[in-house]
């Protein structure tokens, strides 16, 4: 049979975000894959060179709508390193708490997306409902469900009250019970086994060769975790295990993430029980002297890498970000080769790709006569209903 080139994306029902896969097929078999990205490129690295460090705090957070906090932790760690300051211990604990809450909500979210990709939408509904527990905790402490704006250069912006501490611990009890259920489902449920076992194989030597990161490599039996290998925030004193499996398939990536949920709960409990008292922020200079710094964190999707070059002014000279999804793309190409076309969505979803971002407030331009206007979600909804009503649609 003749080979067929099938373009998937940038706009396609199987994709959650715009990207393009050009898949070469021999019948149902995938022979080769070419990936084109950049459809949500926003030029953030260039923009950062013309913003002050304080402004950049909030810009960096908007690189991603799911693992936004990993980015802002990297940014603040880089600036603090060049400034040569040590943040208070309580601030380090609060940062670690948020990093792990973020991992929890991200892994619950991913488990649901994986379920959805294999037609198991009950799992999607369950996990997203449980994820709300984490979102409520994040909102309770920071005021936001996403983009928490917790960090500032020199510490954190909001403290944790005794009531917060109790609520977080209660939340962990509930989530641990639910995670126990998902563990049973992941190992025993026939729908998952049929679609995930021996699918999307990534051999350990290929995972290493292609410099893949995060749960993707840990499911190929490689013990790499930046939290343990290059400890930051308060990970050096926080006990946890690095989870790996050696099945090298999609099922392994499910198991690694489900078991990581338990480790995150363990870390959060430790943090809440050993939370030091004291200040949460130190005062810092607005200008950052000549220097450079590298910070990398273990984001939910893997190593998130940031580089800062400063020049003595209030603005960075160069800021570089490498997100874990980019690092995992060469590995995706490897996983897809030789599989069936029907398995493409779940294999791609198994690295937990994250290509864009989301925002609750939109800046709408009404043309030249009116300046930009900020519309909140409620007004935007009403505006939408009115817009469709005027065009004869019923809501």
């Amino acid at each position: 049979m003749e080979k067929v080139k099938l373009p998937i994306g940038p706009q396609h029902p199987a994709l959650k975000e715009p990207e393009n896969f050009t898949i070469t097929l021999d019948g149902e078999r995938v022979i080769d894959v070419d990936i084109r990205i950049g459809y949500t490129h926003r030029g953030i690295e260039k923009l950062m060179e013309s913003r002050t460090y304080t402004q950049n705090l909030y810009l960096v957070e908007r690189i991603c709508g799911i693992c936004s906090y990993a980015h802002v932790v990297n940014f603040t760690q880089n600036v603090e390193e060049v400034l040569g300051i040590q943040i208070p211990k309580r601030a380090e604990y609060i940062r670690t708490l948020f990093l792990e809450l973020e991992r929890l909500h991200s892994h619950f979210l991913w488990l649901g997306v994986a379920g959805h990709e294999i037609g198991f939408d009950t799992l999607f509904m369950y996990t997203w409902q449980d994820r709300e527990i984490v979102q409520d905790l994040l909102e309770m402490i920071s005021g936001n469900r996403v983009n928490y704006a917790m960090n500032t250069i020199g510490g954190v912006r909001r403290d944790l009250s005794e009531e917060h501490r109790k609520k977080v611990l209660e939340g962990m009890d509930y989530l641990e019970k639910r995670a126990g259920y998902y563990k049973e489902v992941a190992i025993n449920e026939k729908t998952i086994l049929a679609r995930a076992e021996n699918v999307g194989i990534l051999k350990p030597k290929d995972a290493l060769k292609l410099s893949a990161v995060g749960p993707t490599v840990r499911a190929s039996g490689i013990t790499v975790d930046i939290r343990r290998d290059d400890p930051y925030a308060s990970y050096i004193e926080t006990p946890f295990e690095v989870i790996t499996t050696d099945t090298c398939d999609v099922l392994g990536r499910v198991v690694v993430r489900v078991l990581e949920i338990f480790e995150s709960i363990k870390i959060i409990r430790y943090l809440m029980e050993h939370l030091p008292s004291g200040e949460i922020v130190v005062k810092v200079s607005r200008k950052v002297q000549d220097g450079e710094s590298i910070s990398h964190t273990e984001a939910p999707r893997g190593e998130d890498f940031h580089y800062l070059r400063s020049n003595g002014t209030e603005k960075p000279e160069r800021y570089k970000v490498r997100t874990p999804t980019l690092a995992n793309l060469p590995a995706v190409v490897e996983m897809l080769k030789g599989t069936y076309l029907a398995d493409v969505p779940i294999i791609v979803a198994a690295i937990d790709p994250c290509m864009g971002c989301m925002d609750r407030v939109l800046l709408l331009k009404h043309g030249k006569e009116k300046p930009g206007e900020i519309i909140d979600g409620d007004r935007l909804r009403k505006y939408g209903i009115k817009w469709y009503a005027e065009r004869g649609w019923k809501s």
Partner: protein
Amino acid sequence: MTTTEELILQILEGLPVQVKRNRRIFISVPRNDLIKTVNILSNELNIQHLSTITARDTGSELEILYHFLLNGVVITIRTTCPKEDPTIDTIVDIFPGAVLYERELNDILGIVPKGHPDLKRLILPDDWVGGYPLRKDWKPPQESEE
């Protein structure tokens, strides 16, 4: 200092190494020695993970930083190329994980990795003619009037 850091410093002895802090090691080499140095990291230290490649416009030339990871230690090779001849040898045959990072260098700073197997656009649009956005002398293209 961990045993990994001791081992790295021992293997790299004689090279211009700078230890910035714990777990951060920098090596500065001229671009002609890049492949030789990358080979030392690959063969003698058995490093397999390339975190990413950073590049920046220093004003007079282009600086390129290759960040490798070994047991939590970030080893960075620093090299430069002149703006009149922005070429550098590819490291894709030694570190296949570099394939996208080198395309990114080409896209945003106009650095040409010689010998790259598939050098095409990565993040900018296919029909982009606006130059290299991360160069310091870059100006945004004029917005067209509606």
